[in-house]
């Protein structure tokens, strides 16, 4: 319990250091672009692959569970769209990126710690917490909503393909369903959640990497801990945000 409280305190101190004045904005800008490429663009393919299968599977399962002849078939399209928008895309992307980028961030910063590269930055008069973690936070907060939007779009495409190829429901019903009573608010809700998850992933992974002590084994452990803790935080935050916004 005491250790958990100490970690929360250290996390808050790290956040304070991260959000202090940057030494040179242009360098941070360049770093942010590099992080956008690494953690944003580099993650699109995996999100596309997973989302297309998830969209297809949700379509089949929804159809399987709605076998009431009184319900119109386009309800499948509505359900798939709302499931992806409200829950699946944002949370699934959050958990996927926590695994992919979270472990990468923690091990990158952790290795820099054990090889004294962070000490070198500090001795040069650079704030290492801000220099290393802030561009990652900005990149993640900016790109996670994009990944979420891609996931929704590709998930809907997966549903469309399974209707087309697998003859689950008529394609026209599916297309009608995904357009039926669309609330744009759902989209902004999903984007907001994704941005929050991006912040959690970058800061939690940065925290565990930054505080590594020891060698390669500790870096590995920090990387695992970063993924586990950020995944739990994402699920908990999902519950809190959903309760606040949609309750």
């Amino acid at each position: 319990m005491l250790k958990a409280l100490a970690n929360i305190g250290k996390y808050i101190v790290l956040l304070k250091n991260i959000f202090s004045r940057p030494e040179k904005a242009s360098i941070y800008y360049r770093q942010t672009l590099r992080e956008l490429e690494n953690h944003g663009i580099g993650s699109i393919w995996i999100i596309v692959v997973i989302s297309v299968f998830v969209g297809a599977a949700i379509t089949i399962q929804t159809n399987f569970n709605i076998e009431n002849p009184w319900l119109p078939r386009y309800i499948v399209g509505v359900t798939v769209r709302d499931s992806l928008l409200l829950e699946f895309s944002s949370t699934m992307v959050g958990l996927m990126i926590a695994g992919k980028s979270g472990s990468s961030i923690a091990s990158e910063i952790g290795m820099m710690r054990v090889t004294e590269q962070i000490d070198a930055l500090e001795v040069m008069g650079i704030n290492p917490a801000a220099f290393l973690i802030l561009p990652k936070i900005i990149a993640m907060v900016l790109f996670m909503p994009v990944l979420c939007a891609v996931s929704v779009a590709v998930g809907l495409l997966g549903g469309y393909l399974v209707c087309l190829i697998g003859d689950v429901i008529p394609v026209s019903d599916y297309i009608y369903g995904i357009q039926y009573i669309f609330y744009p608010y759902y989209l902004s809700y999903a984007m907001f959640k994704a941005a929050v998850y991006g912040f959690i992933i970058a800061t939690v992974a940065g925290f565990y990497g930054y505080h590594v002590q020891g060698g390669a084994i500790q870096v590995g452990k920090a990387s695992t801990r970063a993924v586990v803790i950020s995944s739990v935080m994402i699920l908990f935050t999902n519950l809190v945000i959903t309760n606040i916004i949609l309750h």
Partner: protein
Amino acid sequence: MIRLENIYKRFEDTYVLNDVSVDFEKGKCNLIIGSSGSGKTVLMKAMVGLLDIDRGSICYDDRDFVKMSPPEKQDLRKEMGMLFQGGALFDSLNIEENVMFPLNMFSRESYSRKKNLVDSSLERVGLRDVNRKMPAELSGGMKKRVAIARAIVLSPNYLFCDEPNSGLDPKTAIKIDALIKEITLDYNITTVVNSHDMNSVLEIGDKVIYIYQGGKCWEGTKEDVLHTDNEALNNFVFATSMAKQLKNS
């Protein structure tokens, strides 16, 4: 000059630095020697602010580093260069970007001017045609040279070297020592070197401080090291039985 006065540092209940007072002089290679675990790395880390001390003062030309605010410390650090044990080069940057890094952060010079400074720093440490290479492609000695080039590119007033010869063969180690000595004289800077390599002590030790169990046990020049009657220092310097026989003969 760097003046340390009554430095104390403890980890839990153990004092790793116990009332250390010493002056590191400008234009000289000041060596801190001592066996592993004696506290010399902690002392150097305390001097550059990587560790906070419990008591005492660290003055850089009469500016008390301990009492400075974090932004003031950051400013003073721009006058420091440090060579870490493993080089601590940034893996993701090539050699030119590594050496240019402090310039990019703190200098408003044009790219061509910065490039010239990088090339002259690399040339100063005896490296050519390595600009595009990555740190992983260099040998241990070359990495140390690049780290020295990065440390001097902003023309620091204070140079810190933590075990500059660790992991190097004796011939390369002597070259690195000679380079540190030349840079100290050329730039007229205060250089502090942590070492337990006796070759370094005899080669470049203008002033030598022996740390024993966290305290300053002895202070003198490289010539004095060989003729001292300090038992702890003699046990450190003449550690082998052959060396002890030579000392006694």
